[in-house]
């Protein structure tokens, strides 16, 4: 229990619930079922340019997933450190979509609120989505200001010289561009919310079979 209380905003989630969320996420990945083919060869870890900074290596992610320790994966730094360079996916001898699986794990962690609001990647993604939903396009200046204000306000001062240089070179604009059809984006978002609500039953069952979970319990 202590372990669980360490992260603020965490819910006491059972392995079962987490598994269900993850399987719902992973079934949309084309070839997501190949996860059951993993040989534990470690090519992914060896190819990853950032595995040295991870607490759980990509190979171990799959091992832990099989061992039913999904919560451990979700609480690790690993899924957030992945920079989506797809080197592991390219080299995997079993053609497992490791990067896409890590995306599914990120979404599971966010869905289950396993991370505090101010966690860097979560915070950046949230703000990014906020800006895109509002203007239709991203604004780098606005994104960084919003992010650092909540994350590390003093970092903004450190970045100021760089920001000013960018402005001087005409490479930054203080005002975001709004697309003409922002309304269309809003409508699409509303439509997707309506689609999300009735979670189709039976899907997770199918996925369980798909990734070979049945065999490991």
């Amino acid at each position, binding site marked *: 229990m202590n372990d669980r209380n360490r992260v603020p905003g965490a819910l006491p989630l059972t392995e079962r619930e987490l598994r269900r969320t993850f399987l719902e996420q992973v079934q949309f990945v084309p070839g997501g079922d190949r996860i059951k083919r993993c040989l534990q060869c470690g090519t992914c870890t060896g190819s990853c340019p950032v595995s040295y900074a991870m607490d759980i290596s990509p190979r171990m992610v799959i091992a832990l997933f099989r061992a039913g320790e999904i919560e451990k994966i979700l609480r690790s730094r690993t899924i957030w450190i992945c920079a989506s360079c*797809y*080197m592991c996916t390219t080299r995997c001898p079993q053609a497992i979509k490791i990067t896409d699986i890590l995306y599914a794990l990120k979404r599971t962690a966010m869905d289950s609120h396993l991370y505090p609001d101010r966690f860097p990647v979560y915070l950046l993604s949230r703000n990014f989505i906020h800006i895109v939903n509002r203007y239709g396009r991203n604004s780098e200046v606005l994104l960084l200001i919003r992010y650092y204000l909540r994350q590390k306000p003093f970092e903004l001062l450190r970045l100021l010289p760089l920001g000013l240089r960018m402005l001087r070179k005409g490479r930054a604009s203080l005002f975001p561009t709004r697309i003409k059809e922002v309304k269309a984006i809003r409508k699409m978002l509303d439509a997707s919310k309506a689609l999300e609500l009735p979670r189709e039953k039976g899907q997770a069952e199918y996925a369980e079979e798909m990734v070979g979970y049945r065999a490991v319990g």
Partner: protein
Amino acid sequence: MEYLYYPGCSLETSSRQYDESLRAVFRALGLKLTELPDWNCCGATMYMSVDETVSLAISARNLALARQNGFGDLIAPCSACYTVLLKTNRFLRENPELKAKVDRILAEAGLSYDLTVNIRHPLDVLVNDVGVEVISLAAKRSLEGVIFAPYYGCQIVRPERGFDDREFPTTMDTLFEKLGAVSVYFPLKTRCCGGMLMTTFPDVALQLVKDILDCAVENGAQCIVTTCPMCQINLEAYQNRVNKKFQTSYRIPVIFFTQLLGIALGCSERELGLQRNFIPLGEPLSTKSSFQVKESRQTRDEIC
């Protein structure tokens, strides 16, 4: 030939020189670029990590708009946009259930998408549609004396098997070698620059950037030529921080491949947005004169 063009958010602001030089190069080669009207953000990797269906729908809106405008090819110069748009196509093609969901969302915006748009990278278009031979005939000056490190970054060659090898691409090398430049041995050409990690976990990203700079400089490159806005900004704007952190003294120009190509095609410095780069190009690459070229050749001999 005419192409539909999806600039992406970075090319509007932090990588304006990429946009300017791309347009200049296409103009110089007699190709027409039409900007996709009212395009929106592709969603990048960040939208995807929160909500997959919505991020695919938002990115598919651009593809639907491209179709509405009657084009089959859409040029996306930013590596992130390129990968995300390709990924959208693949996910929708391979997953009918997801396609049905996205269709319903798109219908709300009065759009529909029939999966027929091809996403192209400008490097692919220039080398495979126009051709290296034609470009070299159109070149106004030789790039002789230019020693560069071809840096492709990760997302234009992966995860899909696209127009080049996924670990050792050579398109850019071939193109510029034909124009007289020399590419250095550069095994990190598709190594990740860290991308958004520079904001979220700067220590990790700085190490990655340092590895790439080390490799380019040790192998004698005068400049790094890249295809990705994220790579360009990480490698160029954060050189000072790398220097401070690792006690190095790097000051190597990082330019977009369209800028280097534009120099060969005789475009002006303004047209190519070269004044927007933080680290100015050295003499052999200067757009003003070509008599400096000989001097730099010596440097090359010394290195080899």
